[in-house]
């Protein structure tokens, strides 16, 4: 579904991604872990072109995302993204946050979008917050709304950039619960996270990145029980 070919990204002299090759199939839940500065967030952000790759190609199905003539806005409508800092629109109510993109991109009419928002809010248990502003919500609620906002576009794949890293510990669970439910419903997901328990249960595949390279690419059991790369063993021994 997503295929990355020989992708490199540099910020000035610093090469953050080094010739990455990656294939992600439909329905896979890929968790990317690694130390900070390893390039995992940059890789994720390259997938929807929030960062422009220095070289290499990325494909979503048949469309080349990195193609010169590509309409990136159309591609992004097929990929949802959830950020560490939620990035809800503070001047809009929860419902307005959710309906903005579907309505603006003419994907849904206003009443359709409102109905869809209602249905999605119900799914994450936040129906009572429909008319609240983001400033009135807790971190966990904000992140669940952010997930719903991305889902309102009916994306084919969801990208999560450290979705629980900015949360108070007691709010992590409610966000992971929503993500787990998404995974069970067969959403294709790429998740950058430090939540090892989530990686172990929900992932179908774990990538370990360090210094701009993918050092290990294995199913969770193998990754945690029997990692091949010594750098991965060292990392796991520190955090587990």
């Amino acid at each position, binding site marked *: 579904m997503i295929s990355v070919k020989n992708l490199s990204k540099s910020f000035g002299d610093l090469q953050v991604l080094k010739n990455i090759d990656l294939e992600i199939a439909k329905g896979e839940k890929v968790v990317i872990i690694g130390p900070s500065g390893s390039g995992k967030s940059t890789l994720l952000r390259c997938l929807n072109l929030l960062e422009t790759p220095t070289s290499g190609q990325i494909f979503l199905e048949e469309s080349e995302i990195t193609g010169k003539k590509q309409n990136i806005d159309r591609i*992004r409508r097929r990929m949802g993204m959830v950020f560490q800092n939620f*990035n809800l629109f503070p001047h809009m109510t929860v419902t307005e946050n959710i309906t903005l993109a579907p309505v*603006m991109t003419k994907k849904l009419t206003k009443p359709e979008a409102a109905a869809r928002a209602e249905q999605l809010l119900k799914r994450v248990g936040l129906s009572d917050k429909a008319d609240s502003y983001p400033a009135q919500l807790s971190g966990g609620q904000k992140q669940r709304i952010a997930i719903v906002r991305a889902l309102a576009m009916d994306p084919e794949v969801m990208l999560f950039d450290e979705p629980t890293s900015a949360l108070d510990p007691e709010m992590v669970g409610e966000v992971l619960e929503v993500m787990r439910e998404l995974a069970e419903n067969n959403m294709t997901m790429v998740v950058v996270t430090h939540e090892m328990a989530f990686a172990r249960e929900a992932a179908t595949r774990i990538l370990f990145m360090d210094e701009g390279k993918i050092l290990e690419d294995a199913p969770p059991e193998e990754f945690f029980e029997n990692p091949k790369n010594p750098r991965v063993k060292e990392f796991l021994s520190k955090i587990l």
Partner: protein
Amino acid sequence: MADFFKNIADQFVFNFIEGDRWQIILDGLLVTLKVTLFAALIGIALGFLVGLIRANRERNGRSRNFRYFRLEWLCDIYVTVIRGTPVMVQLLIIYFVVFAAVDIDKSLAAIIAFGFNSGAYVSEIFRSGILSIDIGQTEAGRSLGLTSAQTMVKVILPQAVKNALPALGNEMITLLKETSVVGYIGLVDLTKSYSIIQSRTLSAFWPLIAIALIYLVMVMGLTKLLGILERRLRQSDKR
């Protein structure tokens, strides 16, 4: 004591009522309001565009399109020149140099001069307002598939304008008071109206006090109005 108040009342009648001299101040006030209002409209429109162009460059890098690049360059020159020279010199140049050959209406010349002057300051206000919005807001909008124009209009600008409003109000207050130099091109505004009364009464004391009070009341009114507007726009901040 009674004499004191009697004296003030007499002075008031002599300076403002006799010969309908209040009419002179009122005419001047209307000129001041006209110049300020239209200059503010030009300034806000021009400043908005220039601020948008300059903020966009800072966020997204210099344009590679040559035509657009020249526009960015023009905006830089505009802001540098206007902010680098006194508004009075600009007013004199507009009236005595640029429109020297044509018989232009004095208040129109003043509107043009103050409109262009205010535009440069307003552009900086909008620029900093736009740049005060976290880059994550743009990323969120774009990641949802909104175009950069849609993201700007729906996500960034409503927040940027809200942040810019106090500074924008300040600029409008400054503009209102700065128009008081239009007397230098022979336009009789609120400030200059004192000299006509003085030429008849031989004293500038009372007209000047009255004029100062009128400015003060206008500025206080404007401040109040902006306060109401700000509170309205801050609705979403409530917890």
